[in-house]
C-alpha cells in the first residue's frame, strides 16, 4: 500500500513522489522527442510557441504564484530579451553569449523594477508594472538607433557552432524544449531550497515571514530578478521564432496573455504553466475551426431536430456571421477568464488534481480539501 499523504519531509521535497511519475514523464519525453518528425510542421511550430509561453509562464509563476507579487508588465521583460538578442546578433555575437547576456540584462532590469516595487502592494504594484511596461514600449518605439523604432527589427536565423538553426527546424524545437525543461527543473529545485520557501512565506503572510527572520525586501527583489531573467531567456527564443520584432508586439495585451497562462493552468505548479500555454496557443486554431466547421454542424443538428432546410440554412449563415465577427476572440478570452476566476481558481491543473484525488481516496474525498479561505478583508489602506 502506498501512502496517499506525505509522511516525512523527504516525501515533500522529492522531485518524483513515486515511480509512476518517472514512467509518465518518460512517455511524455519520448513523445516530445519523436513529435517533430511525426507531426505536421504547423503543429510543431505551435508546440514551439507552447514551450516559449510556458517558459514565460514558469517565470511569471515564480513571481505571482509563489511570491504573491502580481505583475502585468512581463511583456516588457520579454521585449528586453528579444531586443537584446536582435541587437547583439547584428555584431555577430555568438548565440550562447547573447542568450546569457539577455537573461542577465533582463534580470537586472527586473531587480531594478523590484526595488521600487518593495513599497507597493496589491493594486499599486499592478499599476506600477503596467506603467513600467508602457514606458519600455515607448522606449522601444523611440530609441531608433538601437531598436529601429516602429519599423521593427529583423532577427536572423540562429547560428550555433557554425550551423544555422532555422526557426522551423527540429533543432530549434529541441532548443526551446530544453530551455523549458531546464527552467522547470531549476524552478522546482529553487522551490525546495530556502529561497523558494522564503518566497512562499512572503506570499502567505509578509508579516509572519518577516518575524521568522526572512529578509522580505531581498527575497522580493530576487523573485523579480529571477522571474524577469527567465522571461528574458524566453524573449531570445521568441525573437528567433518570429524572426521579426517590433514594439507593438509587446503590449499590455501580451502581458495579460501571460497572466491568463498561469490563471488558466493554475499558478501553483509548473504543470499549470504548460497547460495554460497549450490553451493560449491553441485558442487561435480552435477559433479558426469554429469559424469553418461549427456553423455546418449546428445547422445539421437543427435539421435533425426537425428544422426545415431553409431554416437550417438561415441558422448556418447567422452562426457563421457570429463566429467570424472580429471581436469574438476577445469575448471568448473574457468569458474564460471570468469563468476560471469564479469557478476554478486553481486552474486546469487544480481541476486535474481534484479529480485524481477523488479517485485515489475514493469514498473519502471531501470538497473542503481544496476550499479557498474567504477573508473579508479589512482595508488594504491599513496594511
Amino acid at each position, binding site marked *: 500500500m502506498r501512502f496517499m499523504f506525505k509522511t516525512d519531509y523527504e516525501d515533500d521535497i522529492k522531485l518524483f513522489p513515486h515511480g509512476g511519475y518517472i514512467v509518465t514523464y518518460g512517455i511524455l519525453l519520448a513523445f516530445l522527442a519523436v513529435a517533430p518528425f511525426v507531426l505536421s510542421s504547423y503543429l510543431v511550430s505551435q508546440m514551439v510557441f507552447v514551450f516559449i509561453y510556458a517558459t514565460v509562464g514558469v517565470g511569471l509563476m515564480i513571481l505571482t504564484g509563489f511570491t504573491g507579487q502580481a505583475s502585468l508588465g512581463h511583456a516588457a521583460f520579454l521585449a528586453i530579451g528579444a531586443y537584446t538578442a536582435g541587437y547583439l546578433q547584428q555584431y555577430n555575437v555568438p548565440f550562447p553569449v547573447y542568450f546569457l547576456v539577455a537573461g542577465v540584462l533582463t534580470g537586472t532590469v527586473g531587480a531594478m523594477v523590484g526595488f*521600487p516595487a518593495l513599497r507597493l502592494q496589491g493594486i*499599486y504594484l*499592478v499599476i506600477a508594472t503596467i506603467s513600467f511596461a508602457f514606458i519600455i514600449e515607448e522606449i522601444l518605439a523611440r530609441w531608433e538607433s538601437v531598436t529601429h523604432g516602429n519599423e521593427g527589427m529583423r532577427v536572423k536565423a540562429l547560428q550555433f557552432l557554425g550551423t544555422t538553426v532555422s526557426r522551423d527546424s527540429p533543432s530549434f524545437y529541441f532548443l526551446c524544449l530544453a530551455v523549458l525543461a531546464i527552467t522547470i527543473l531549476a524552478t522546482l529545485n529553487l522551490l525546495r531550497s530556502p529561497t523558494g520557501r522564503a518566497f512562499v512565506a512572503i506570499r502567505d503572510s509578509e508579516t509572519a515571514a518577516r518575524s521568522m527572520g526572512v529578509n522580505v525586501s531581498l527575497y522580493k527583489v530576487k523573485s523579480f530578478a529571477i522571474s524577469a531573467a527567465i522571461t528574458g531567456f524566453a524573449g531570445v527564443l521568441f525573437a528567433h521564432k518570429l524572426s521579426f520584432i517590433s514594439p507593438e508586439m509587446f503590449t499590455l495585451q501580451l502581458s495579460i496573455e501571460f497572466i491568463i497562462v498561469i490563471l488558466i493552468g493554475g499558478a501553483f505548479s509548473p504543470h499549470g504553466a504548460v497547460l495554460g500555454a497549450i490553451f493560449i496557443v491553441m485558442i487561435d486554431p480552435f477559433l479558426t475551426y469554429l469559424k469553418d466547421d461549427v456553423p455546418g454542424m449546428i445547422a445539421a443538428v437543427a435539421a435533425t431536430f426537425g428544422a426545415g432546410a431553409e431554416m437550417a440554412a438561415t441558422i448556418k449563415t447567422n452562426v457563421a456571421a*457570429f463566429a467570424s465577427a472580429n471581436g469574438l476572440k476577445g469575448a471568448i478570452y473574457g468569458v474564460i*477568464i*471570468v469563468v476560471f476566476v469564479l469557478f476554478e481558481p486553481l486552474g486546469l491543473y487544480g481541476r486535474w488534481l481534484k479529480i485524481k484525488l477523488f479517485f485515489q481516496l475514493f469514498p473519502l474525498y471531501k470538497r473542503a480539501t481544496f476550499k479557498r479561505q474567504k477573508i*473579508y*478583508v479589512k482595508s488594504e*489602506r491599513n496594511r
Partner: protein
Amino acid sequence: MLDFVQQLVSGIALGCVYGLIALGFVLVYKATEVVNFAQGDLMMLGGFFAFTFIGILGLNYWLGFVGAVIAMALFGMLAERVVVRPILGYPQFSIIMATIGLGYFLRSMAGIIWGTDDLKIETPFSQGVLRIGSLVLAYDKLSVIAATIILCALLYLFFNRTTLGTAMRASSENMLAAYYMGIPVKRVVSIVWAISAAVATAAGVLLAPITFIHSNVGLVLGLKAFPAAVLGGFGSIPGAVVGGVLIGVIESMAGFYLPQGWKDVAPYLVLLIVLLLKPEGLFGHHARKKV
C-alpha cells in the same frame, strides 16, 4: 504666454475626462477595495447605450442621457452580481483578473453589436465656442469641466453627509465589522457599482462629441485614468479629479514643450515617481498595518 494658457485649459479639459473616469474607480475602490479594470469599458458601453437611445431611437438628448444612465446603473448592478459578488473576500488579484475579463467581454461584444466604426452623438454642446479675449474654448469641453465639478461635489456630499455614504465608507474600512453593525454590505456594494456605472455613463456621453464612441475608447482612456486615480490617492473623490487634472495638464504640456513621444509616457512616469515617493497619493491617508 497665450500658448501656455491655451495648453493649460485644454489640459484641464482633458484632465477632467480622466478625472470623471477616475471617479468611477475611486467609488468602487472606496466602497469595496476592489479596482474595477472594466471601468473604462463601462464608460464605452454607456456611450453606446446613449447612441442607441439618441441616434437610433431618436429620443431627445436629455431623455436619452437619463435613459442611458439608468440602463447602465442596472447593468452595473448586474455585472457586480455576476462577476464580483461571488469572489468578494478572495485575494484582490482574482477580482482584478475578473474585471479585466469583464472588460474584454464588453469590448468585443460592443464591437460585434455596434460595429467598429466611430459613432457620433448630436449634442447641444457639439457646436460653438466661448471666446475670452483671444482664448478659445469649445462648449463640449466646457460641458465636461462643468459636469466634472458638479458630479464631484455631489458625490463628495453623498459620501460624507448621507447615511448610505457613511455605510459605504464603513464597509470599505472593514467589511465584516460593517456587517456586524447591521449594514447590508452586499446591497451597499451593489449600489456602489450602480453609481459608478452611472458616473461612467455620464463621462461617456459627455465625451462622445470629443472622442467619438468606438469599442476601444474605454481601454485607452481607462488606462490613462489610472495614473489620475493613483496621483489623487485612490480613495479620495476630490483627489481623483485633482489627479485627473494634473495628469491632463502634464500630458498636454509634455505634448507641447517636449519632443515627440513624451506625451504618452509622461503620465506613467509621473505615476511611477508618485508611487515611489508618496505611495498613498496626494490626498490619501496612510496607516500602519496591525498584526
